[in-house]
Every structure is written in C-alpha cells, then in structure tokens.
C-alpha cells in the first residue's frame, strides 16, 4: 500500500483542482513500572488515510482507515462535497499554489530497535525503581519508556511524493517523597522531556542508576527544603524549564493561524500583530530563536511538512527583533507575513494546521559558572511541573520541580515549590545572560495541544541556561 499510494489516483474519480493523499502508519510501545511492579505494557498500531480535495478555492477533507479503493473513492467524494458545500463561505480562496509539487524523503537518524529484550527492558525499569527509592520516605517510584515508529507518505495529483519515517523514543523516571503532609516529586527533567528521535538510549546510558538515585535523593531533599521565597529577583532557568518558557511565550504567540484568528475559540490569539513582524523588539539583543527542523535527533526534525513544503532552518527572532512567524504556506498567503514549513498533522484523521516543530534558543557566550557567579541574589529553577498562560500568551505562571537559591555568586540552599510569573512581552526583554554551547541541552515534548478538532503533536525545544532580571518568584501554599 505505501509503495503504491500514488496508484490510487488511477481509481479516484473526482472533479477537483487538486487532490492529496496522506497515509500515516504508526506503531508504538509503552512500558512502565511503578514501585517495581509492571503497570503497563501496551502496544498500538494505527493506519489510516486522509484525502484532501481542493475545489472552488476551498479544501475539503475526509479521513478513513478502511483502505480499499471503494472506501478511498467514497472519502474523496465526501471531501469534495465538503469543499463544494463550504466554498462560498471560505475564509480564503486558495489555489494549487499552496500545494506545490514536492518529492523527497526523510529518515530519523536511527531506528528505535534496541538490543534489549522485553524482559531486559522491563528488568532495567524495575532496577531504576530500586535506585529511585533512596529512602522509605520515597512513597512512589516510576520508570517508563516508549518507542514510536511513524511513517508519513504524502502524494498528490500534481506529482508530490514525500515519504518520511520517524523513529521516536522517550523515557521518564520519577520519585515521589512524602513526610507527613509534605509531598514532593522529582523527575528526569520534567514529564517526558527526554523525548527525541533516534534510538532508545535512556536505558543504555552508563549513568542510568546514578541518575535515578540523584532524582530520588533530590525528591527527598525537597521535603526538608525551605519554600521558594516570595520576592522579585534574578531568575536562572535550566534548559529543561527554558523548554516550556520558549514553548508557551515564544512558540505559540508566533503561530500565524492564532494571529489570523483561527484559534480564538480554543487556544486563543496572540499579543503579536501581523504588523509586528520585522520590527517588534521581542526580547533583549541576546535573544536568537530559530525554527530548526534540521537538528539531528531533536524530536520534531523533519524534511518536509505535511503538505510537502521543504523544511529549512529560519530565524524567528534575531538579536531580539521579531523576523518571521510560525506560519504555514496557507497562513503566509493569508497574512503576507514570512513563515516556515509547519503545516503539520498529529494523525491521519486530523487536517494540517500551523504548529511548532523544533523551536530553539541559540547559545550565547556565558558559561554556567559565569552566569551564577555574576548574580548576587537570585533563584535557579529546573524541570517544569506547572504551566498556565493567558489566551493572548502574555500573562504566564510557571512552576518547577526543583530550585536553588543563588547567594553571592554561588548556588546554595535547595528550595521547594519554586514558581514564577510574568508577562511575555516584558519578560524576554529582561533576558540578561544566555549560556554558551556547554549549557545547551535538547529536549522535547510529545504533548502540545491545539486546534479544532483538537490535535496533540510532538515538538522539540533546545536551549542554553538563561538568566532573567526582576522576575516575581514565589513558593507553594505550604
């Protein structure tokens, strides 16, 4: 079927300006162990096709997992009828210009096939749980891994033929500590942050058990730690929290479909206006943000987006100035703002919309010791655990798992329940230090939600350690 997808055009009989077929097959396996006992060993197989039809300047779509010529023809008819029935109400009159011919392929750097047997994999997860339990006060340990193998095959009536094969692996270790009414949790850089393309390396790393012990010990340390102080101070964020900061206050506000209004009933709009591109000072001159689908192994690397546009690295923000939006070829036409190749789908049964892919903050010139050493008083935070931001992506409040005070240029006491809040448009202008390449780390999240109908998609984020001045930080409810 995959190889012969374009042959379906021999069967299709639809009077349309353009027809596209997107076949997506996915196999995934998830294994999780809690407190040494198996909690889930689950597999998923999925396979289905979306047919998109352009007629009267409007796209209609139909998705089916019944991959017979008759079923695909019926889907084509449904898609065509949707296009025709809604064309007089179309937001924009599209032409075939937004579906140029594309031919090519992409392959993730490595296969997810690892050498570990099922028994060995689960056995290692159980040992990780043992390592996480550094004390009787650790009341819950968890270790999980998942692998996903996804193929996207896109063909069109104007000759497109794009085949992309993604191999994805993610892992998570966590420990929950409890003493009386105090409960604290620590994980491996935040939930599913260790998600990437390539082999499942989490279980083969030499330091796996030491890492698990450190997670358990830090959860334990948090029990006796002071609450994060309520103050306005210098905030230093580790890359595993910068991931979230970039995602919520840079990625989403720059999505052109939000600015064009498509998302206003759900995820929301943006404080960024179309007229801001090219001129808005988004952050300090140290801020350089890229859309970069070319980073080897980052979670959302790809060769083409899901309508076949070749994906290239682009600066969204350069030296603090907003240059380019996260807008697909359709949004670029509608807005006349430069964009990127980010028309993406989460599944065969959802239509393409503007999405983030890999959104990265480029490294600066400060070493970690230089950053900490330059701060008389501040708070350092790691690993996201809470996130909330308004529908214009401005007023945010984020919480982390683990914090340390910075006193006289040194990391000192551990603090628990570290939170901070701010306003995107001013927060990024308070960026005063950007770590160098030695502080740069690559993470990803498989859970970015957006769109109507809803879609959850995988995105990658990489960042160095960063410092921000005059940020409101605070602790928990106690």
């Amino acid at each position, binding site marked *: 079927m995959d190889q012969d997808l374009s042959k379906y055009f021999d069967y299709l009989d639809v009077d349309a300006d353009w027809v596209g077929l997107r076949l997506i097959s996915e196999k995934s396996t998830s294994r999780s162990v809690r407190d040494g006992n198996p909690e889930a060993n689950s*597999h998923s*197989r999925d396979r289905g096709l979306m047919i998109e039809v352009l007629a009267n300047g409007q796209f209609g779509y139909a998705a089916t997992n*019944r991959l017979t010529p008759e079923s695909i023809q019926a889907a084509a*008819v449904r898609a065509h009828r949707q296009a025709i029935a809604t064309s007089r109400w179309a937001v924009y009159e599209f032409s075939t210009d937004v579906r140029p011919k594309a031919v090519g392929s992409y392959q993730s750097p490595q296969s997810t096939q690892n050498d570990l047997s099922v028994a060995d994999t689960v056995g290692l997860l159980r040992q990780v749980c043992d390592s996480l339990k550094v004390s009787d006060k650790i009341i819950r340990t968890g270790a999980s891994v998942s692998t996903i193998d996804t193929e996207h095959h896109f063909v069109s009536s104007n000759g497109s033929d794009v085949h992309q094969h993604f191999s994805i692996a993610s892992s998570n270790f966590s420990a929950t500590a409890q003493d009386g009414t105090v409960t604290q949790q620590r994980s491996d850089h935040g939930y599913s942050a260790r998600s990437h393309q390539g082999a499942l390396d989490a279980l083969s790393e030499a330091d796996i058990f030491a890492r698990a012990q450190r997670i358990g010990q830090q959860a334990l340390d948090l029990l006796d730690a002071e609450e994060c102080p309520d103050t306005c101070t210098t905030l230093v964020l580790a890359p595993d929290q910068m991931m979230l900061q970039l995602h919520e206050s840079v990625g989403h506000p720059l999505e052109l479909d939000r600015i064009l209004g498509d998302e206003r009933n759900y995820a929301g709009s943006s404080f960024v206006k179309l007229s801001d591109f090219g001129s808005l000072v988004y952050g300090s001159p140290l801020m350089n943000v890229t859309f970069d689908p070319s980073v080897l192994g980052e979670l959302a690397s790809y060769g083409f987006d899901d309508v076949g546009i070749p994906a290239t690295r682009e600066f969204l923000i350069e030296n603090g100035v907003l240059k380019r939006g996260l807008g697909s070829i359709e949004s670029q036409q509608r807005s006349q703002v430069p964009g990127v190749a980010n028309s993406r789908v989460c599944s065969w049964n959802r239509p393409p919309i503007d999405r983030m892919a890999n959104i990265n903050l480029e490294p600066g010139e400060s070493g970690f010791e230089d950053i900490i050493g330059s701060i008389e008083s501040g708070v350092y935070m790691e690993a996201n655990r809470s996130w909330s931001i308004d529908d214009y992506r401005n007023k945010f409040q984020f919480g982390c798992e683990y914090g340390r005070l910075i006193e006289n240029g040194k990391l000192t006491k551990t603090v628990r329940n570290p939170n901070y809040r701010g306003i995107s448009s001013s927060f990024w202008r308070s960026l005063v230090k950007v770590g160098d390449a030695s502080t740069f780390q690559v993470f990803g999240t498989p859970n970015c939600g957006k769109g109507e*109908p809803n879609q959850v998609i995988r995105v990658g984020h990489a960042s160095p350690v960063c410092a921000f001045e005059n940020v409101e930080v605070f602790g928990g409810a106690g």
Partner: protein
Amino acid sequence: MSVQGVPSEKFGLKAVDGWEEEFNGLCDSTIATLKANEHLSLELSGESTQFMRLNNSKVRQSGTVTAGYVSMQLIDGDRTATMTVPFTGDRDLDRATVLEGLNDLRQELPQLPADPYVVLPANLGSSRDSHGGKLLDPDQVADALLTSVQDIDFTGIYASGAVVRATGNSAGQRHWFATETFDLDYSVIGASERAVKGALAGQAWDQEKFESQVRRSRSQLVTLESQPFKKIKPGQYRTYLAPAAVTELVFMFSWGAVSEASVRQGDSALAKMRDGRSLSHHFTLVEDFTQGTVPRFNSLGEVSTPEVPIIVEGELRNTLVSTRTAKEYGIKGNAASDWEGLRSPRIASGTLAEADILRELDCGLYLSNLHYLNWSDQPGGRITGMTRYACFWVENGEIQAPIQDLRFDDSLYNFFGPNLVACTDTAEFVPDPDTYEERSIGGVTTPGVLINDFTFTL
C-alpha cells in the same frame, strides 16, 4: 461538478451501521481462539464525525473522520499486556488485525514479570444503549450556521455524528453504547477583540434555538463592548463564577484529585480531605450517570452505580476506585475508569436565585469563563488560571465594566471551602467539546458559585 462512482452518502449512525454486529462477531471469534488460562477484554471506540472549523463567520476547514479502534487486554495467569489496533468495520480485515495483535501479545507475555494487581474479566451483566439523533445534513451545515451571522465575527467548531463505545470479554459480557450528537462550541467576537463564549449540544439540531442563542450572545457582546476595560489590581475579590467557569475547575478534579491511586501515591489535591480537611457544606460533587450522556460501563465493561457521591456537603465520601487500584490496596472498587477520572460529574445546585446573583455579589467580579488551569501546588490544592471572555467588574449589584483578564491563584480549600458563599439554584449542563484523539461525549452539570476573597495575582 461531475462526480462519478458516488456511493450513497452515509452519515451519523448510518455510517457505523453494522459495527455492532461486526464488533460482537469479532469478540466471539477472537475469544474462541483463547487457550487455557488466557483471558481477554476488548474495547471498541469509534466515531463518524463531521468537523467544521469557523473563523470570522467563514469556514476555515471542513471534513469528515471515520475512525475506530479496538483495544484488547490479554491476561495469561498473572501476566498481562495490551494492544490497540484499527477497527474498520471490514470483517475479514479486522479479524485478521486483531488476531495478529493477539498473537503479538502472546509472544510477549512470557517475557513479562508477574503483575500482582492484574484483574480478570468478569461477567456482571450486559447492556445495549443506542440513541439516535436528528442532525444537520453535512452539506447543509455551513448554510445553517453562517447565514444569520454574517454581520458578526462568529468563530468556533461544529462537530456532529455518531460516537460508539463498546466492550466484550472472555467471561461473556457485552456492552454497546452508540449515540448521535452534535456539539457547537463558539465565540462571538467584537471589534475590540472582546468575546462571548457559547455552546450548544444535543441530539437534535434546532435552528430556531441556535439563532435564539446567538442573539443572546450578540446582546451580551454589546454589553461587553459598551464600556472600556477596567483594570483590576491583583488582590482578593468577592467573585461569581458562572457554570462554564466552574466547569474548568471541575475538570481539575480529574487530574490528580478524585483518583484513589493518586491519593495513595502522593499526587492528589484531595489527600488532605482524607486526613480530615473539609470543604464548604455548600459543595457537593457527584459522579452522576443518570443523565445518560455517557455509558455507565468503563473500558473493562464494569458498570458503575447510577450515582457515586464523591464530596457531600464538604466531606469526602468516595474517591474513584478502579478494580486494579482496589486489588492493590485491598479496598472496594466502584467501576471507575482505569485513569480514575470523572466521566459524568455534577455539582449540586444551591439556593441562590439567578435573579439575585448580581445583588448578592454586590461588589466584585463576575466571571463567565476561566482558561488554561493548572495545579500551582497540587498537594495544597492550589490552582492557577486566567479569566477569559465575558468578565465584569460589579459594584452595588450592577455591572460596571468589562475587565482586563486576570490571573487567579488560589486553593480549592479556600474557594470551595470557607470562602464558598452559595451555589445558584439551577445547574447547567456544559458540554465537553474535547476532540483530542476522539470526540468526547458528556460534560459537566454545575451551578454557578459565589465566593469570597478569590485571589488574583497578576
């Protein structure tokens, strides 16, 4: 337009016609292949849906999705694993796919360690429930929705069609639930970008009801746009939360709160209630299946009692307990889902008459909707989120001005505790428009609530 070879158009339940027979046959044929000591549970989740996305009273995207999945859990002795595969309605293909998946599970089980909490399937009775609807013809939806709103900015999502949930197991139990519904979730947005949120859901489309509701939304938007925003300083304010706003708070109870496993494992916001902490006597939360919007059976086919009281007059009566959790902790289960979240929550109404809301609020904030909630301190029950849509400053019992959106950050032990003044005397059903992976059914039934000293931080 010339379209040849057009099969007859099927929509709604007609589009899944035959799935019940196919699924039951699939259960029978698969279970017949089981070996000694093997047990199997199967769950079908499927839909045939039309989605239409609207922006500024125009159609952004429109299409149909027909999808189905069979999830199976194989148990051999005390070892278990699960597999989810596509369900297409094609007998031969589906049977081959399921058997292939089953064989993969068979290969895996001997390599897995024993699962001490595995639960064998049981036959506690079967059920069949099918609710037909009267939905708009897919070709007519755009005209029906958009003709009367061309002078306003009408933005949102319309979803319509059939949703199916079914289970079968090797103990002989079968459940079937099918429903034909529509769900319109929209915003009417003014020139100033202020907006009024609306929702309309049901089994029979009523054009007059739709147009009447949109007229009300227009009227509310006029009020919203009639005055400049008032900027409210962070602080504590007497606040009225309309049912849609309360719904967002209720959703949080399914995310590390009402789950017994989460209480036991240290990540429940209600753990303090287990230790004797109470909420207001005005607050009652019930898992209520009597409305019939969602099936009473869970993914294993276990059937809940019609009502499960969770919090009654401020006291924790029950958590949601899956059979697996029950086995692990040696307690009684209540047919909760495996994730132990609320499937049909209802907050009990109170005594505050709708006509008296503003007078009783007196001076403070009237909030129609909340947005993007998250735990800011889960063990402390503290939730943060934003105000959104039609939110007003009220003085002397009268709306004074719309407000600029505010961030709240407060504990449920405060706002559903001593600070809860009253619940309104009528409860609304707020449909769940969630379409992640599949179209949700059901929603939350809740009154509005009046609270003292709700804390705003930004």
